[in-house]
């Protein structure tokens, strides 16, 4: 085994101020095992007493080579890896990947599948925001928020489980539709969520929105202007909290989002508190979309019947020779996608989640690239925490809502 190479301060000279080289300021490592970094994120901080002069994020501890691995698998099998990227948003990742594959091969998706995709994507967004709310509030010492949020999250994970058999790594959305239709319990379970959750969101707000301790820690902290945010590629709630109204669900609709009536919340302040308000409002809007989608849920097939690209249903294999051949071809060599490249993006809870897919005409993707929102959002963090106290840095990391699996891929 080769010796582990130590990085000397010389290699980081260009990143810290001159005062650090003279020894006037202190360099301090935060992480990769610090509880408030939400994963394995290492921050190299240059400190003048309690004030942060420079913050240098160091990522890559969770690198799993997803892009390389996907190149070695057929289109259907590669999808399983997509859940593992942003583990807070598995349905959204599947959706982005499936939209890219569908665009690449030209597949149509039945209406019922589109609506179920929207319901599950919005529920996933809700549970992701719940985890964010719980952990970000926990960092600011609001312990009870964490317990309430994780209690509610279980209801959503139960819905995922009755649909796909898995709580988190669902792989339920497939190219051309869904894995299978939702079970009969699905509607009642989602109705129960719609009945109880609006009151729960009110409870969260009662605990935090006017709480003086929470306001002290968040108001005016970690400001990011709209110009800086755009130039740094920041998307999602962070961008909307800086006053830019940009939501791919509204501005570049996919999966029939244009049929739903919802509001894209924005705030002009661009601080930690604004991000909190934007996300809380988004949670309410999620429930609105889910309700509209559930009310109009049509009957019909949930998978395209183009069996060149979509495996036929199990019931047909016993009676149709053609279906058996298609099934065999699909699961041994996969389907050949026509040459070309596509880029499709969806709105994940953290921002623009894009998939760049290139095909050389074979059964495996030639190149898959994941444009993950946390990667760019984290890059903007050093700007937000220049000149703030170390304690405020904790609030800022919480407000950015990073998922390290999303950054390191």
């Amino acid at each position, binding site marked *: 085994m080769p010796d582990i190479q130590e990085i000397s301060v010389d290699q980081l000279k260009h990143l810290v101020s001159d005062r650090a080289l003279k020894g006037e300021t202190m360099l301090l490592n935060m992480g990769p095992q610090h509880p408030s970094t939400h994963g394995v994120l290492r921050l190299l901080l240059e400190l003048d007493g309690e004030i942060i002069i420079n913050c240098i994020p160091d990522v890559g501890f969770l690198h799993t080579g997803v*892009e*390389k691995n996907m*190149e070695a698998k057929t289109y259907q099998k590669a999808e399983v890896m997509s859940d593992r990227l942003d583990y807070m948003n598995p349905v959204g990742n599947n959706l982005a990947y499936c939209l890219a594959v569908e665009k690449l091969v030209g597949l149509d998706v039945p209406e019922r599948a589109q609506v179920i995709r929207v319901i599950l994507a919005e529920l996933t967004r809700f549970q992701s925001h719940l985890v964010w709310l719980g952990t970000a509030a926990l960092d600011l010492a609001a312990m009870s928020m964490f317990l309430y949020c994780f209690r509610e999250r279980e209801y959503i994970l139960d819905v995922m489980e009755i649909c796909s058999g898995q709580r988190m790594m669902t792989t339920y959305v497939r190219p051309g539709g869904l894995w299978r239709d939702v079970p009969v319990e699905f509607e009642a379970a989602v109705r129960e969520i719609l009945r109880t959750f609006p009151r729960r969101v009110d409870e969260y707000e009662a605990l935090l929105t006017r709480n003086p301790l929470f306001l002290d820690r968040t108001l005016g902290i970690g400001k990011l202007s709209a110009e800086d945010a755009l130039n740094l590629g920041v*998307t999602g709630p962070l961008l909307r909290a800086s006053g830019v109204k940009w939501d791919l669900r509204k501005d570049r609709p996919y999966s029939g989002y244009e049929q739903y009536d919802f509001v894209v919340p924005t705030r002009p302040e661009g601080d930690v508190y604004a991000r909190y308000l934007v996300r809380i409002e988004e949670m309410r809007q999620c429930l609105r979309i889910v309700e509209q989608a559930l009310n109009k849920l049509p009957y019909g097939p949930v998978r395209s019947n183009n069996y060149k690209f979509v495996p036929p249903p199990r019931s047909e294999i016993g009676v149709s020779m053609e279906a058996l051949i298609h099934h065999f071809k699909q699961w041994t060599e996969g389907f050949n996608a026509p040459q070309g*490249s596509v880029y499709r993006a969806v709105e994940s809870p953290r921002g623009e989640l*894009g998939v760049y897919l290139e095909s050389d005409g074979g059964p495996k993707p030639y190149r898959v690239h994941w444009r993950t929102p946390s990667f760019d959002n984290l890059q903007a963090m050093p700007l937000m925490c220049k000149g703030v106290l170390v304690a405020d840095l904790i609030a800022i990391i919480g407000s950015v809502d990073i998922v390290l699996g999303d950054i390191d891929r």
Partner: protein
Amino acid sequence: MDKKLEPIVEKLKQDFGATASKDRGDVSLVVPAEKIAEACRQLQGQGFELLSAMTAVDYWPQETPRFHVVYELTSLSNHLTLELRVPVPGVNPSLPTVSAVYRNANWRERELWDMFGIKFSGHSDLRRILMPADWEGHPLRKDYPLGYEEPQFTFNYKEINLRKPYAKE
């Protein structure tokens, strides 16, 4: 092609010798490597505020060009998207940085250096980002093998264990 996109594409063709193509409704422009920073600057002035994604594709064993560096640009004000592709040769791959135009290109370019070994001239901090600092090779190149681990069963557990890297110490 979108009405608003046409004049922008025409101007890029004239100023930078770009060639346009259309694939599945999306417009893609091939821009020469040395002019990419100026082209991005011009597009930013025309309303493409956001560099959505930046990646590369390796066409090994083809050598000229071996790589395509791909830029996905988004215009929030005009609701447009545009793809720029820059061909880069396999020997000493290098192109100018766009991190002065779009600041998020900084980490994206570090990632491309890490994964493909493409150098960006004028970049302020071209270190590896995802792989360890002492890593050899660039994993997403097509001539870099995808590693694997031998499955260990009860009958050959010890035998395979002796071949593992940590067994040598």
